[in-house]
């Protein structure tokens, strides 16, 4: 979709700069004239929201790092120092802690949107895989960030999760020793996690640039999954159309964010993390942050440690292979009557796994986790199988047609597969 640039430098300075470093042209093409499908719904605003959250996390994080001390003996009280004695330190910390949760809420909506509308299909495979990479980096960043306050859940969460690597044959123990910087979670662990927690967001930022680059090259998917055919009829320029819509959605999102920050800042945290880390006392139930719970449930559903680790890792990695797993040529589940039911079942399964992840790993909870884990992976098998026999509904001939509701005679009845096959030829 990156076509001819419509930028015309208007002042002498702009012309001078444009001949030497066309950075204003880049910005104009990416955020002003960039054509956006006119039928995007509000689920498409979460990309912008995520960009905002990443910047917000980096900014609040940099301020927090100015006042935080990554040393096991004083980390906890340095966080309390931020909460009590630093001007608006409580605001910075609650924004950062709740920001992590809001970041994950947004990214999960973003991922499920991609799943529902088939945004991973050709020619958007690389765009999708970069998204999975960002998700993995986010998980690592969030996990290490949660360790920094050095409360009980920080310490024991770090112990449980880093210990998982020891399940790997041959290199497992070495990796764990390397992560810990010793033979247990201790001050060296805290030091390196702080260092990496500061580094990874900038790596995320780098991959986000690639993600956006890929997006701007292939163009956005849309609720019909039908490619843009006529730029004039099917798209609107990014500014002002997408800009104002994204901004409005962002303010709504910030409203929810603020609700938690100002009125219930500890709702999404765990009370035990206000108890300073104590290697001699194990909490009754060690639970990770809520956004890891579905994967934690999958981990514990498998009785074998290595098997659990592989299942948990597989649950994320399998996403990267979706473009080749899903055998249907039709992108949007709106036109896939069977796959759509499986999609919603998958959503319920993920929520169910999240609930089970918070429960103790015993009795019926384990059996339920095993059933839901099977269903989780079953969804991907189903996507492959369904695509082989499913008869999709008729696709609209174009984005403009779907918006204006004008299905003209024979063209509207064209077989869906014929329409959707086009992008394949392109990619």
């Amino acid at each position: 979709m990156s076509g001819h640039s419509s930028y015309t430098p208007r002042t002498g300075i702009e012309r001078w700069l444009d001949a030497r470093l066309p950075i204003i042209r880049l910005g104009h093409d990416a955020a002003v004239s960039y054509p956006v499908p006119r039928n995007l719904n509000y689920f498409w605003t979460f990309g912008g929201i995520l960009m905002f959250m990443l910047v917000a996390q980096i900014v609040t994080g940099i301020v927090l790092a100015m006042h935080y001390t990554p040393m096991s003996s004083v980390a906890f009280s340095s966080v309390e120092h931020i909460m009590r004695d630093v001007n608006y330190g409580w605001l910075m910390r609650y924004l950062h802690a709740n920001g992590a949760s809001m970041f994950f809420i947004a990214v999960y909506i973003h991922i499920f949107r991609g799943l529902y509308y088939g945004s991973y299909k050709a020619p958007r495979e690389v765009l999708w895989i970069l998204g999975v990479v960002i998700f993995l980096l986010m998980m690592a960043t969030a996990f290490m960030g949660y360790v920094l306050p050095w409360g009980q859940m920080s310490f024991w969460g770090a112990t449980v999760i880093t210990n998982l690597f020891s399940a790997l044959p041959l290199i497992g123990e070495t990796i764990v020793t390397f992560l810990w910087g010793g033979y247990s979670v201790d001050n060296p662990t805290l030091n390196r996690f702080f260092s990496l927690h500061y580094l990874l967001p900038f790596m995320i930022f780098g991959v986000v640039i690639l993600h956006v680059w890929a997006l701007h090259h292939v163009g956005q998917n849309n609720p019909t999954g039908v490619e843009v055919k006529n730029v004039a009829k099917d798209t609107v320029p990014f500014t002002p159309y997408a800009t104002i819509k994204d901004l409005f959605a962002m303010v709504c999102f910030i409203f929810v964010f603020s609700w938690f920050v100002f009125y219930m800042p500890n709702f999404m945290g765990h009370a035990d993390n206000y108890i300073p880390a104590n290697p001699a006392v194990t909490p009754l139930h060690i639970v990770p942050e809520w956004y890891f719970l579905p994967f934690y449930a999958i981990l514990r559903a498998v009785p074998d440690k290595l098997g659990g680790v592989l299942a948990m890792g597989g649950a994320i990695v399998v996403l990267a292979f979706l473009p080749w797993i899903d055998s249907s040529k039709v992108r949007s589940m709106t036109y896939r009557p069977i796959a759509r039911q499986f999609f919603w079942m998958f959503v319920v399964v993920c929520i169910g796994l999240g609930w089970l992840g918070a429960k103790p790993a015993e009795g019926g909870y384990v059996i339920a986790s095993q059933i839901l884990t099977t269903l989780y992976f079953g969804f991907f098998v189903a996507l492959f199988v369904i695509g082989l026999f499913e008869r999709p509904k008729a696709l609209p001939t174009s984005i403009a047609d779907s918006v204006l509701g004008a299905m003209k005679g024979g063209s509207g009845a064209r077989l869906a597969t014929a329409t959707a096959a086009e992008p394949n030829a392109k990619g």
Partner: protein
Amino acid sequence: MTTLPFRLALLGLAAGLGAALAQPASAAEERVIPPALRWSFSGPFGTFDRAQLQRGYKVYKEVCANCHSASLIAFRNLSQPGGPEFSTGQITALAATYQIKDGPNEQGEMFERPGRPADRFPAPFPNDQAARAANGGAYPPDLSVLAKARSYERGFPTFIFDMFTQYQEQGPDYIAALLAGYKDPPPAGTPELQPGQYYNTYMPGHLIAMPQPMQDGQVEYPKLPNGQPSAPETVAQYSKDVAAFMVWMAEPHLEARKRLGMQVMLFLLIFGSLLYYTKKKIWARMPDGSPAH
């Protein structure tokens, strides 16, 4: 086309899940949910009750502080806005009643001096081991953030309702219930208590190492002009007051947070509405002027 078999499969799965979850999980530690009390600081407009915080401080000072530290709190905090708001004079006088270890001086010796408002509350024991030794092996936890460190599981679907009601007072509810929850003798059927164990209704598992800390009338509250105490001098009232004080210790900027929150929310509402109507106007037409819908 595959609707019926699909539905049947779903039903079967649901039944399987139900059967799995119906299996008894091993009994977690028995716990009694504390009653939800009314707190002045709950909700979006919540503020601390100054008189209650001042009473709570008195209970803390005369009862709790004998064994528990609150090492993150300084005397000066007691006079800051949004807290008990003692006067600066009161705080200076109060701090001076404590002897604080300082030093070394120019001779290289540690010395004791009267406390200043900037000093933190002195701990009752020099170290954790001394605290344990004096309390039958049990460590009295630091009270600075304890109101945020104690909670109980709300469960589904209550935790979803909590997002809207903003209920988050599990900590003070639990602390107030616990302090007034001692039973002596313990109810019938309780295994015999070991020395240093006490029965408390709200402690998970019911066995607690802290002896009942307060009796009715133990702490004297400020008197009203008619000579009556300003609040009932009962264990129930002491417990509530000290729990409120602990919430303030754990969250000293609670009032500023909720106040700023209201300003932010109002701004977002107005700004959001303006954006909404701007968006509607822009999206009414395509760039070429044709209707967008």
